[in-house]
């Protein structure tokens, strides 16, 4: 059932599984081939399968056990696992290191990078580091403002924004150039580049135009903010199709299973989230709220699968990672496809 | 009309204790046995159109109010600047108030609103420097309210009597200096 690519020679120690990451046997991808990187997620999408990605939130400590545990549970029910990067500006074990742990546990890490904490020098350096450790997926984000986090007094960087980051990462891969224009003489980092989009952000009419900008900049896949308002998402996807963007980028619909109506009510307060009241009523009326939450998510997966232009789902179950296998199974998405 | 000293008992207590200053800002002066009764010095900035006219009316009606009020006529309460309110206190006033027209009836339309905001701002400053914002107030009345004028004067006087003399009255400062000098001398003697 495991769809891991060629097994890497294991090396004892903390950085297990990363030696030989760039070997040809692993299929690191070339500018000429159909697959540009060594990413499993890329293969799944380019081969035309409906993809499943999920999320792991690193801890606020140096402990890596839970990360490996979650990776162990999620690796066979998804094509990639996102490692968040100081989410909501709270200091956590960094995405790069967490990605290395996921890889060691047999998973397919999707690294995240925010523009808030690092300047272009640090970002490029981290990308080189990630690539050298066998990480092939990178999502470029702006990042929540640090006033949301536990270090509101920090100086925020924002040297470049997410769109400029996408351009930069693609240029490192396809033009073999650093942002300053210098050549990367050998072993350029080959990342499968993703970005985020919020179908519910304002101004609504501008969202698709901004998505087009991300695609022009070079985004290859998009993970959306979690969807509860199906109607609005359908409207959004129609605008996406009208702009021809569904043919240019893989869009993964973001979904989060809710544990209770209280959880849904809280999500209504998060900026950028839209939760219809009917959903809250439905949850409130349910006896087994967790089971209802799973049911709702499964229904959503089935619904978005029907929408033309949706290439997969991104299941964000932070603090409830254990429920993902059940959701993916009930949605009829197992087994995950085998790819070269 | 003479003023009643409400804190006679307290004063005796404090006098025994050596005349230390109390939290409300009163000095050792009024509490030292044999000192003259505390006669507040209150400055009232009164606008020509309403408050000052009311003061005139109070006079014509022979209404009694404490002789503690020094009235300063201004063309509009809005002419009163925070600087002159502070200066009044700096020069030793125990209390200050600004009296203007009723809200909505200011002869210059918004002058009394400006005065109100400035009085609020200076009250805050007075709290921050340890003088106390209660020593400053804003009142509104019309030209026909002679009785109200007398009432305000009386109320403010009572308030200031309770708060005690300003800690920076020249006499208070002098007395404190003398007390400090005496204490030092006492210390020298005991060494």
């Amino acid at each position, binding site marked *: 059932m495991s769809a891991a690519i060629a097994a890497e020679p294991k090396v004892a120690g903390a950085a297990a599984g990363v030696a030989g990451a760039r070997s040809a046997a692993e299929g690191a991808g070339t500018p000429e081939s159909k697959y540009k990187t060594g990413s499993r997620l890329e293969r799944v999408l380019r081969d035309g399968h409906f993809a499943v990605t999920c999320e792991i939130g690193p801890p606020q400590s140096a402990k890596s056990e839970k990360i490996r545990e979650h990776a162990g549970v999620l690796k066979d029910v998804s094509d990639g696992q996102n490692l968040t990067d100081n989410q909501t500006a709270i200091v956590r074990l960094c995405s790069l290191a967490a990605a290395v742990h996921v890889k060691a546990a047999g998973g397919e890490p999707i690294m995240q990078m925010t523009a808030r904490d690092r300047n272009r020098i640090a970002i490029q350096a981290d990308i080189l580091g990630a690539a050298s450790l066998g990480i092939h997926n990178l999502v470029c984000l702006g990042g929540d*403002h640090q006033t949301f986090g536990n270090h509101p007094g920090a100086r925020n960087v924002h040297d470049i924004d997410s*769109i*400029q980051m996408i351009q930069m990462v693609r240029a490192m891969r396809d033009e073999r150039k650093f942002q300053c224009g210098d050549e990367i003489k050998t072993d350029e980092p080959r990342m499968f580049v993703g970005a985020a989009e919020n179908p519910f952000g*304002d*101004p609504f009419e*501008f969202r698709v135009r901004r998505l087009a*900008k991300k695609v022009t*900049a070079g985004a290859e896949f998009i993970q959306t903010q979690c969807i509860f308002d199906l109607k609005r998402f359908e409207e959004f996807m129609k605008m996406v199709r009208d702009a021809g963007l569904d043919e240019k980028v893989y869009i993964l619909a973001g979904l989060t299973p809710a544990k209770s109506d209280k959880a849904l009510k809280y999500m209504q307060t998060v900026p950028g989230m839209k939760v219809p009241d009917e959903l809250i009523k439905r949850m409130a009326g349910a006896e087994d709220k967790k089971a209802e939450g799973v049911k709702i998510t499964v229904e959503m997966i089935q619904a978005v699968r029907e929408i033309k232009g949706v290439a997969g789902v991104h299941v964000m179950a932070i603090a409830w990672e254990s429920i993902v296998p059940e959701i993916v199974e009930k949605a009829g998405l197992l087994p995950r496809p085998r790819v070269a | 009309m003479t003023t009643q000293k409400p804190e006679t008992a307290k004063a005796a207590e404090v006098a025994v204790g050596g005349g230390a200053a109390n939290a409300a800002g009163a000095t050792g002066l009024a509490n030292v046995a044999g000192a003259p009764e505390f006669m507040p010095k209150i400055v009232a900035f009164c606008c020509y159109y309403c408050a000052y006219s009311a003061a005139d009316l109070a006079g014509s009606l022979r209404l009694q109010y404490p002789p503690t009020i020094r009235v300063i006529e201004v063309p509009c309460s809005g002419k009163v600047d925070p600087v002159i309110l502070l200066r009044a206190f700096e020069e030793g006033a125990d209390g200050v108030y600004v009296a203007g027209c009723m809200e909505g009836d200011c002869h210059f339309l918004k002058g009394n609103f400006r005065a109100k905001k400035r009085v609020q701002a200076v009250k805050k400053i007075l709290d921050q*420097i340890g003088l106390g914002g209660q020593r400053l107030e804003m009142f509104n009345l019309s030209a026909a309210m002679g009785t109200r004028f007398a009432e305000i004067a009386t109320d403010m006087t009572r308030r200031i009597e309770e708060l005690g003399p300003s800690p920076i009255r020249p006499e208070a400062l002098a007395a404190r200096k003398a007390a400090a000098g005496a204490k030092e001398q006492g210390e020298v003697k005991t060494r």
Partner: protein
Amino acid sequence: MIVAEPKPIAEVAGLIKAAKHVLVVGCGECVTVCQAGGEKEVEILASALRILWKIEGKDGTIGTQTIVRQCEPEYVVELAKKLKNADCVLSLGCGVGVQFIAEAYLDKWVVPGLNTKFAGGTVKAGIWEERCGFCGDCVLHLTGGICPIIRCSKSILNGPCGGSQEGHCEVNKEISCAWQLIYDRLKGLGKLDLLDVIQPAKNWQTSRDGGPRKFVKEEAMIE
């Protein structure tokens, strides 16, 4: 103009604690407009501090002087006379003014009475808002006259971010989303296509990131 806010009186009192003869210096330009350090504010503060010193039983003098502007040596020299007997200068100028005074009178202890905040303008009487990010390479022609560097909390050049909601910035509802404003403005001007262009990564060398800056105009230099 430069907008500054008065420091709390308690803090200012602490700064001048060790002094005996203080000169409170005001500035006739920006801080007069934002009512933080003009002649009036100088007199108010000086009076308040004198009362405070009297209550504390502290001996000393607090004098005042307001000059045309503190960021110009030719006016700063006018302070010399009153400074002769002063051992402390409490400047109510913006950070620039404080520094020019300190530089001109090396033997005097110069302290700031204001917290200099930003470059902005009057939105309404009593309300001043930040407008310019001092990036050194103005791009206001690309955004319909709204600065993305400083009015966007994340200095995004290809905005908005996902946190923009109903015209508000995700940081707090009182902040308008700059990119919503830019979008509306350009829409009204019929220039929305400006937003389809990807703005490249900014060269921040012209901003404070490149180090302290200087502007020289040769023909204005008289020797």
